């Protein structure tokens, strides 16, 4: 575990940079994490971040398929918003834990 400062707030993060306490998250913090990932957040990003945070709060599993069915973006659009590894980047920026892939 490590501590990082985002938007003037000291935040505990995992070894991979995921926030340990999702309730500490603010839009400003999200914006700064996104900058580290090379992403400039737009309204569309924030709409999706809201969706992700709600899903996680309700204890539901996040999947790329589920995001494609969110009504906010399709999967291709999701990749355009968070290029490369969209689910990993989007969850990190949303301040929620890294999705566990159980198989």
């Amino acid at each position: 575990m490590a501590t990082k400062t985002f938007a003037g707030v000291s935040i505990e993060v995992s070894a991979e940079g995921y926030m340990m306490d999702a309730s500490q998250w603010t839009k400003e913090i999200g914006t700064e994490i996104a900058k580290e990932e090379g992403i400039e957040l737009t309204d569309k990003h924030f709409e999706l971040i809201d969706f992700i945070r709600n899903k996680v709060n309700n204890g539901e599993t996040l999947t790329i398929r589920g995001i494609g069915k969110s009504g906010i973006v399709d999967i291709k659009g999701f990749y355009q918003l968070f290029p490369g590894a969209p689910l990993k980047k989007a969850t990190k920026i949303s301040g929620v834990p890294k999705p566990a892939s159980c198989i």
Partner: protein
Amino acid sequence: MKRLLILGAGTGGTIMANKMRKALAREDWDITIVDQHKTHYYQPGFLFIPFGMYGKKDVIKPKSDFFPVGVNVIYSKIDKIEPDDNSVLLEGGVVLNYDYLIIATGTRTAPEEVDGLKGDLWYKNIFDFYTIEGALALADYFKTWKGGKLVINIAELPFKCPVAPLEFAFFADAFFTERGMRDKVDITYVTPLPGAFTKPRATKMLGELLVQKNITIIPDFNIMEVDNENKKIVDYGGTEVEFDCLVSIPTNMGDPMIERSGMGDDLGFVPTDKHTLQSKRAENIFVIGDAADVPTSKAGSVVHFEADILEENLLCAIENRPFTGHFDGHANCYIETGYGKGTLIDFNYDTEPLPGSFPFPGLGPFGLLKVSRMNHYGKLIFRWIYWHILLKGKEMPIDSEMQMAGKKL
């Protein structure tokens, strides 16, 4: 007369019919099991078919061989479950009422979920091996294949028997080596996971095996479509992988009946308490095996361990006691690595696969995360155990709860 209804007569449904018929008095309890098919497939055997090690006859038996006396068997398609009415509608309008329901309808491959997968090349250059039809078609194809780019692709998580695609890759390496044409076959393993497996130690061990066997791994690949014309698979990020033969592990989904009943998640799996196996929809509905959304492997070993817990909790529910059965996510998988050898992993919700010996600490005879001939024999012997002990719900010398003894941290 009280009624226990079991939907699905695969591994989970059959074991539960056997266990519950022993546990519940014949004069008080009527037990009925429903399935649309009359043939029981030994699904772990499908992996061996493309390489000519098993044929169809090695993996099939009539389902009726495994039902106990005193259980009503109905061969019919299921239309839907009406959880608010405690009833199930069969195709053709028959209604079955129940006091308790066990859903054991498993998972199925859904190739239609990926654009182009079930296109012009389906069963010509593109195959699956999770169905008997796909495994047999691939066996025929390999008999005369001259070599080229063999691509193994997992479409989406979760998928049944998560080690089978790796075993397929290892078998392919050995098979084409033994035929003296390994230099003509380029094997690539394309997965949505960040590596060969999920948990760190197993991923490292299995990833190193892929490297040793000269199998290329392409991780973090989420397939968008199959381009039939140019023979390539394309992911959402734009990465393309060319193939001459594509072996696909299609999207896994629950039975369409679950969706018709409005009881499934995005993929048609039933939301289920991961420790008690009670459905989240109704107190008198329980779920076993692949049909449930619990975060462990979709595998026969899991079903077998869950069966002990489910029997216990069903009896708790019937006798109005708090649940005492607690499922820990235990899974146990023999992994074929080719050339008559295999490895073994044993894990649960909280403990990743660790090295050690199994099932007897220090003695084995099986080695965890080790490649040995004994592990391969374990897998072969398992087919006999499956038909003669496991399906009948008899005792086995392996605890349903994962044991730490014998494991090295």
